[in-house]
């Protein structure tokens, strides 16, 4: 590209051809004030604040820097007296319409306009058009436009009505230099959306995500709504953004598989007595983690839905766990994280009363009981008893707006009624509903609680009945992070040892089909859960793949001819067993 030589404020410089003056100056660190310029938008030259003085040979011209391209040999003055006078005039005119806009007032102060001669108007909009342009050029929604003429000119939507084409992207408010466009903060909405989804359309799933790559959230990305924008493509220096990428199914051949599909929290709405979703300020343990996180919606401040600092917080243990109605098992992690919550609340909010409602404290690990004792010293209240009900029935004005927790304190044998500002429900960890499907897919099984069943609870805790398929983490049962890490390590090394060996041992009890007896009826093929039996059409015989057969013997019982037999469980052996046990 051609390079242009020019002089700005007496300093010689170079800039690529067609660069607007504004940018050429910016590259030298010279600031030219502008209100209607935005790097993503075509220069519009409407606010005129960026007007500078240009000398071309002997001619002097006043031009707008944002859209005046550099040409060879020109000399530019960005802050000459004439320029400053010009800007003062422009500012006075602007103030006549928008007298109270901070950005204008700051500029006015900078240029010494103290008392505008034409008075101060009350409008906020300087009609710079950034919003209109961003809406059409970048977002592509074409919602905003200019209406009417002269003194009556306004920016609005068609017929001044809320447009259903508006995708509430907020771009107009973002580019508005005067703050004339505001997004209404919807506290309730933000609270409802908690735990919040990605804060922007492009985000990294979570800090520890592997691979740690940014992804585009299609639901909120403007491009996927309007087909335009793609600002990120321009901005990304690595040129890594490709909006055309699609999900695709890839087939990968592997020797071992680790099932680490995790858990889900129980739906708190099922426990109607706890009022989740009905009252504000009742949150799940995961909601609280988000709220408490420095990267969360409140930047880590523990606040109620109204943005107030809570004075008392109730933490309910065993919600859905150790409960015949929901899950009989103990979720294992709740006691300890509930203690952690209590500790953090105490640390962050001075004087906040924390109530832990528990059935039993299960502080089962190294340093855990010590932590519990520390919390006792920190003044956390422990109430042994299951919370019966949470409601907002205030008995006196001091309880107005509070949540009332009712629970029997079994230590003192009294039903207590404790008003608090916020409640955290420590929900049960439960198996994901898709685990059942996965178990069929991977030939392993789930227990009646829905978690994957290990091959042996003591001797093979990461193996499944299917060779080469291992399980780790909460998909196998509720467990905390250290246990998960330990189990994951064990599963990974079990998988690696298989990979290292390169072969698997087949079951000792596999079934076999005696070919000469097989009539090719394929009944066995239909009953095999492992697709281990194949039918050879040419030979009109079925045969069993030893490596796939798990030795259930279902085919053996189904074979009408007795052509299939199971090693160690042959008919003669069973008959002999029957003979033997009936002989006494």
């Amino acid at each position, binding site marked *: 590209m051609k390079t242009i030589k020019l002089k700005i404020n007496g300093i010689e410089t170079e800039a690529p051809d067609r660069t607007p003056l504004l940018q050429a100056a910016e590259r030298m660190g010279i600031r030219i004030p502008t209100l209607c310029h935005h790097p993503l938008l075509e220069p519009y030259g409407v606010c005129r604040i960026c007007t500078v003085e240009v000398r071309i040979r002997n001619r002097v011209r006043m031009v707008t820097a944002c859209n005046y391209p550099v040409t060879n040999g020109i000399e530019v003055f960005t802050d000459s007296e004439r320029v400053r006078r010009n800007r003062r005039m422009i500012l006075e005119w602007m103030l006549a319409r928008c007298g109270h806009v901070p950005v204008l007032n700051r500029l006015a102060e900078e240029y010494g306009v103290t008392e505008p001669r034409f008075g101060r108007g009350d409008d906020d909009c300087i009609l710079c058009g950034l919003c209109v342009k961003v809406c059409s050029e970048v977002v592509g929604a074409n919602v905003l436009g200019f209406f009417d003429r002269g003194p009556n000119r306004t920016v609005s939507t068609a017929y001044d009505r809320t447009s259903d084409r508006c995708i509430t992207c907020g771009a107009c408010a973002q580019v508005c230099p005067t703050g004339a466009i505001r997004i209404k903060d919807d506290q309730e909405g933000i609270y409802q959306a908690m735990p919040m989804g990605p804060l922007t359309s492009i985000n990294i799933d979570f800090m520890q995500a592997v691979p740690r790559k940014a992804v585009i959230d299609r639901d909120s990305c403007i491009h996927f709504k309007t087909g335009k924008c793609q600002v990120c493509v321009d901005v990304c220096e690595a040129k890594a953004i490709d909006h055309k990428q699609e999900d695709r199914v890839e087939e990968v051949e592997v020797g071992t598989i680790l099932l680490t599909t995790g858990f889900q929290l129980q739906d708190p709405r099922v426990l109607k007595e706890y009022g989740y979703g009905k009252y504000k300020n009742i949150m799940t343990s995961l909601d609280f983690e988000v709220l408490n996180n420095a990267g969360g919606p409140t930047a880590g401040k523990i606040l109620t839905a109204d943005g107030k600092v809570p004075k008392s917080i109730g933490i309910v243990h065993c919600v859905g766990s150790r409960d015949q109605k929901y899950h009989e098992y103990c979720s294992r992690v709740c006691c300890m994280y509930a203690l952690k919550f209590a500790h953090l609340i105490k640390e962050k909010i001075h004087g906040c009363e924390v109530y832990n409602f528990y059935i039993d404290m299960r502080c089962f690990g190294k340093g855990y009981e010590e932590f519990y004792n520390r919390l006792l010293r920190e003044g956390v209240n422990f109430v042994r008893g299951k919370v019966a009900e949470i409601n907002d029935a205030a008995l006196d004005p001091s309880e107005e707006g509070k949540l009332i927790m009712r629970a029997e304190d079994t230590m003192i044998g009294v039903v207590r009624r404790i008003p608090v500002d916020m409640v955290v429900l420590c929900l049960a960890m439960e198996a994901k509903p898709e685990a059942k499907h996965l178990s069929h897919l991977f030939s392993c099984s789930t227990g009646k609680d829905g978690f994957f069943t290990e091959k042996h609870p003591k001797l093979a805790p990461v193996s499944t009945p299917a060779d080469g398929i291992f399980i780790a983490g909460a998909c196998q049962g509720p467990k905390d992070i250290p246990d998960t890490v330990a189990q994951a390590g064990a599963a990974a090394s079990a998988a690696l040892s298989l990979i290292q060996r390169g072969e698997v041992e087949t079951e000792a009890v596999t079934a076999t089909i005696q070919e*000469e007896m097989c009539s090719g009826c394929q009944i066995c093929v239909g009953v095999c859960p492992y697709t281990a039996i194949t039918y050879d059409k040419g030979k*009109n015989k079925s045969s069993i793949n030893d490596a796939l057969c798990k030795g259930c013997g279902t085919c053996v019982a189904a074979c009408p001819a007795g052509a299939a037999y199971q090693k160690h469980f042959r008919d003669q052996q069973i008959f002999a067993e029957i003979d033997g046990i009936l002989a006494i």
Partner: protein
Amino acid sequence: MLTEIRKHCADLLTRKQVAAVYGLRERDGHTAPYLFTRAEDLDGLTVGTKVPVTFTLRPAKKNIISAFQEKCPGQKIAVLVRGCDERGLYEVAKRGQIQVADLAIIGYACDADQARACHCPRPHPQNLKFGEKVQGPSNEAFIAKIVNMSVAEREAFWRAQFSKCIKCYGCRNSCPVCICKECWMENDAFSPTGWLPPDFPMFHFVHFYHLSDSCIECGACVDACPMDIPLNLIRKVLSKKVQEELFYTAGQDPEEKPPLASREEAKERLEKGI
């Protein structure tokens, strides 16, 4: 009806739509299955006796149609069937013995007298081309005899019946849906060679159980029994149970998987329509 059937079959053969017609031939006053390959032989074609066309050959354990399909792959064969013959074809097709797609099934209906003689609840094939459908006698009335007995009475009844058994294997040999090469009825561990009559009810248990989800109620076993043991009483009780418990009726659809040959639960099969 016979003239029309002969004409139809002659047509198929002369127009080379099928390589052969498998049906019954009357010769010297006796009727037996025959494979017609020439149209002029069709004068001998007959219908309506109790000779099944799908019986399995022993010890080859194949039926004529599967032998034909093995020897002449790809050639189409027309089969003249009654209701029971067709059901038998479907059941052996489900067990991989014949390819129904390569068959031209020509069905003819049995009359009311024939249906009554066989205690046949469905005396007409689905591919009905000749004859009128008639209602078969109900199984309920037929099995009432043993259903109404007490357990002890039943035991006494069957002990008496099976004490007549001479272990001729006629019930098995005549069965159109029995296809196993090795038969459990000959299993020494279960029912030893040389004992006569066989122990109650070991020997018969095998055949009854094995055919529970494939019995087409043709009555061939009863016809073949030299000791007139009413085997179809139990078969019909079992068929009823299979219908009620496993939602399955044998011989309906060659694509349907028999319930004892599929992994799905009975209800699941019903929902999925397997």
